Structure formats: C-alpha cells, structure tokens
C-alpha cells in the first residue's frame, strides 16, 4: 500500500541500489567536505568502493570543538540559514551549520519518520520539546508541518497549560521526554484525568533520553497510546536519524542519508551486523557542514534482517551505553566533569563533594553530596542555605539541569588514596 510510505521508492529500495546510491552520495560529500578547513587534506577526493571508507579517519566531538567556530564549514557563511550550537557557559562549544537544502532534507527525514509511525494530516501534534537551540523542538516542528499535521508548538514546561492544550485541541500525537511524561502522569492523577478516556492521545515520540523498554511500556500503558523510540544527535541534524516503524522492533536508520557503521570503540575496527559497538555516522546529504565517520560515543548493534514493514534500511537496537561518561539527565547531555568544575570553583565546596549517579524511576538521576565543613557552617544556617542555592544556580547555568544537592557531615565522604574518586555510578545495570 503506497500510503504506508512517505517515500516508497527510497524506503523500499533494494540493498544493492542503496549501496550504489550511498557511494555516489559519499563521493559528493567528500568533495564538499574537502572545501572545509578541517577536512581539506584529511580525506580522499574520491573512493571507488564503500569498503574504502574504513581508511578515512574518524571525526570526534573533540575535533568539532577544536574547529569551532568555522573550521568545518564547507560553504560560504552566506549560504547558511541556521545553526544549532551546544550549550554550556564554560568549556568549548560545538556548532552545526545548515543551508536551506540541509533544513529541507532534514525536514523530509523527520516527516518520513513521523509518517512511518502512522501520523497523518488529520493528527494534532503537540510538540512538548524545548524550542531553541535544542534540535528536538524545531526538528519535529518542521517535519510535522511538512507532513501536514496540525502542530501545537507548545515547547516544554508549564504542565497545566500542556494539559489544557491536550484537552482543548484534542491532541493525538506528542513529542516528549520520558521523565517529563512520567511527571505529567502524576499531574493527571491529581487533576482526576484518565488519559485513556479523557484525552485523545494515540502516538508518543519519546526522545532525548535513553530509556529502558520498561519505561516505554509503562508509558504506553499509563497513557493508552503507542510510543515510538527514536534516535538522533545534533551532529547528524537532530531527530530523524533513526526511528521505530509500527512493528516497534528496532529503529530504522535512514541509510540514504547516513552511512551507518558499528566499530569496536577500542580498536576502531568495523564490526559485523549483530555485534555491539560504537555507532559511527557519515552524512550523505549535508552541504553546510558535512561530517565524515563521526564517532557518536553511543553503543548499539544493528538488526540487518528484513523488516516485515517492507523498509530495507537496517535497524539498530536501543542505545546500550556510552563509550565515555556522558550522562543524559532530563534530556540534557551532561558530563560529570562539567559538574566537577562548577563545584570546585565554589571555594566553600572545593573538592569536598561526591557526585552520585542513580537510577530513579528507570532514568538517570544525579545526587550531589557536599560536605558541610566548619568553614561554611560557622556562619550559621542562613549562610548554609544561601550556599546551597548558589551551588544550584551555578550548576543550572552551566549544565542546564538542577540536580539534587544533599548536605552531609564533614569528613563523611569516602576518602581515597591517590586520585580522589568523586563520581560514583550507582545505577541499576539493566539488560
């Protein structure tokens, strides 16, 4: 049935033709990328076979940071119509530049993804992701408009208003981060709303936070809808890189737009389908800032088997972990080192803290323990409270999150010989 596909020809293309298409687009990409400062002499002008890809060096987050701001720009700045940049007030930022065509292609991928899950023109889509530099907000927004659904650009927060919008406009589709969805449900209970009977929600896109299958099923049960996993990263536009189809058994990576590799994170060797390793992407259609062999730091495996939905693009599993220590808390990427820097810059805290990473409600959560040493307590309780507030504000400014802060007695945190261990991972290791 043609209506099942947004772009039937591409979505059901045979593997052989797909690989030819990839090679063609890869060569165009290499040509474009060579115009950037960073890739200029790093990549070949042309390759004859996709297997030659493995001889091209990887690109890492560090490389992006080091080439900030325009090191990887492959066109003149005038051609750029939008940028998305990482947050953080200290440390080096990263930026992704988009030309008009880049936005257009990205939009098409998102529309394709949403259409695949069953969204249609008649749907009312409440986009509850932050608009702004977050790619999740605008990414789905444009995709939804392209598809023709009615979008409510609600952005995040203001829960009472979100609920009001759902009721007033009979929203059928939502885009939301799992932790917020769980929180919203508690509000529903308080207001006596039964989402299954009182609302019209039928589809939810859960993104920006890695979450377990249990969380997804729980949300599906609580809200009475179908939840679809998706995977994306701003380096690869944002949302629209990989999405679950209606069979919900793995996420299709759009291989006409990205070359997908799985590598051994320690050796860099390519792994076979089905083996777990680090995801590496190469953009195939990006003009403003093409990226070649980008190491995502995310660990997953591919499911190469034919999908009954008819789409020939390979699926990937949910993300199993990271190669580095990056955390995602409430949809925000956080490195423990960012937190440590903030804490150590506050003289009253110095190095007398411990960052605990826990699992709360199936999601990553942070608890920062700060020792109340004599030098901060002698001023009395008011000073203590204002210190706690200051720690919280500084953390929020730097990382955009407000982790829990627990005040503890002096000398109660573990002391270790040699390098102090100030980050402790107490998460449940799930399968």
């Amino acid at each position, binding site marked *: 049935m043609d209506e099942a596909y947004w772009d039937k020809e591409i979505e059901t293309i045979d593997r052989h033709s797909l690989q030819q298409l990839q090679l063609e687009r890869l060569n165009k990409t290499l040509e474009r990328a060579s115009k950037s400062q960073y890739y200029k002499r790093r990549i070949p002008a042309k390759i004859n076979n996709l297997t030659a890809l493995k001889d091209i060096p990887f690109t890492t987050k560090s490389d992006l940071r080091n080439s900030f701001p325009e090191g990887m720009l492959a066109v003149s700045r005038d051609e750029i119509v939008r940028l998305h940049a990482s947050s953080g007030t200290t440390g080096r930022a990263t930026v992704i530049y988009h030309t008009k065509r880049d936005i257009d292609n990205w939009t098409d991928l998102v529309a394709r993804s949403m259409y695949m899950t069953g969204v249609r023109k008649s749907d009312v889509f409440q986009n509850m992701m932050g608009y702004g530099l977050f790619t999740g907000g605008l990414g789905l927004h444009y995709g939804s408009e392209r598809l023709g659904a009615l979008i409510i650009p609600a952005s995040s927060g203001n829960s009472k208003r979100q609920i009001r919008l759902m009721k007033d406009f009979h929203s059928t589709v939502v885009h939301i981060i799992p932790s917020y969805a769980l929180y919203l449900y508690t509000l529903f209970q308080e207001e006596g709303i039964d989402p299954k009977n009182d609302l019209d929600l039928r589809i939810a896109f859960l993104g920006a936070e890695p979450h377990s299958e249990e969380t997804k099923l729980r949300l599906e049960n609580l809200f009475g809808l179908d939840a679809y996993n998706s995977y994306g990263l701003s380096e690869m536009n944002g949302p629209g890189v990989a999405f679950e189809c209606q069979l919900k058994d793995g996420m299709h990576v759009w291989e006409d737009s990205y070359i997908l590799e799985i590598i051994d994170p320690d050796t860099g060797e390519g792994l076979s389908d089905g083996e777990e390793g680090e995801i590496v992407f190469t953009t195939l259609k990006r003009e403003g800032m093409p990226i070649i062999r980008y190491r995502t730091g995310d660990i997953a495996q591919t499911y190469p088997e034919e999908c009954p939905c008819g789409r020939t693009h390979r699926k990937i599993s949910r993300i199993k972990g990271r190669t580095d220590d990056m955390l995602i808390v409430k949809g925000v990427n956080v490195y423990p080192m960012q937190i440590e820097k903030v804490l150590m810059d506050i003289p009253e805290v110095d190095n007398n803290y411990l960052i605990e990473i826990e699992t709360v409600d199936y999601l990553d959560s942070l608890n920062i323990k700060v020792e*109340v040493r*004599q030098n901060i307590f*002698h001023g*009395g*309780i008011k000073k203590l409270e204002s210190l706690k507030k200051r720690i919280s504000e500084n953390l929020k400014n730097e990382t955009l999150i407000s982790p829990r802060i*627990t*005040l503890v*007695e*002096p000398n109660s945190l573990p002391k270790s010989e040699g390098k102090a261990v100030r980050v402790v991972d107490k998460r449940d290791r799930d399968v």
Partner: protein
Amino acid sequence: MASQVTVFVENKPGRISHIARILGKNNINIRAITISDRGEYGLINIIASDPDRAHDILLKEGFSVSRNYVIGVLMKDRPGALADITEYLNESEINISNAYGFILKSGDKAVLILEVDDFDRAEEVIRGGGFHTLSKEELVNL
C-alpha cells in the same frame, strides 16, 4: 548576651546520643537542647554550661559547629507569662526566629531562649519592658 552552640548533623540515628556523650565525657553540662529537622539534615541547638569549650570540643571531634547569640529571658513559671513577653515583643516589632524554654524552679522561675533578628535592639526592648535578660555568666551558672 548568651550563646548557643549549633551542630550540623545528617538525619541519621545516633547523632544526638553521640554528641551528648562527647559533652558528657568532657564534663560539660547541657542546660537545654532543641533540634531543627531540615529533612535530610538537622541542627542541634545546645545551651551548654561552657559554650566555648563545647564548641571547640565538638569541632575537634569532626563536627561542623556554629555559635550564635541568644537572649535568655528570666520569666515566671505561670500561665500567661509567655504570652506577656511575646505580645510585648510583637508590639515592638521584634522578630523571633527561634525560641524554646525550660523550667528552672517549678512554679517559680523559667527561662525563655530567643534568637532574634536584631539582638541589640531586642535586648534593649526586653529590658525596657521590665524583663530580666540573663548575661553569659548567669546563663552558664543557672
């Protein structure tokens, strides 16, 4: 002006007994004690027979301790006594941030310990109202 010793503790079992034993062993008499429960942590406020020593000893034992001034008001132990003084303070716009009391001699005398925002003015006002505030030595020698 008298002083109160405040100790920061986590909300764990055994904190009060631990602190009480340390003071006991060091021959310090606790005249009054209250605790503020702040959820995950608590504050133990102590009027000790020797506040300076109590402060130093607890500090040495690894606690975080603060000291602050309190006003000790001598009162009659009878119905209405507390209302009298607090109404008076209210009229004079003295704000009380913490208060607790204890009996000295049943039916006769009691002490009201007050933490206020403006100590100097409070002391002046209290004395002006005909109440007796205890000096550091008097509080220690109760």
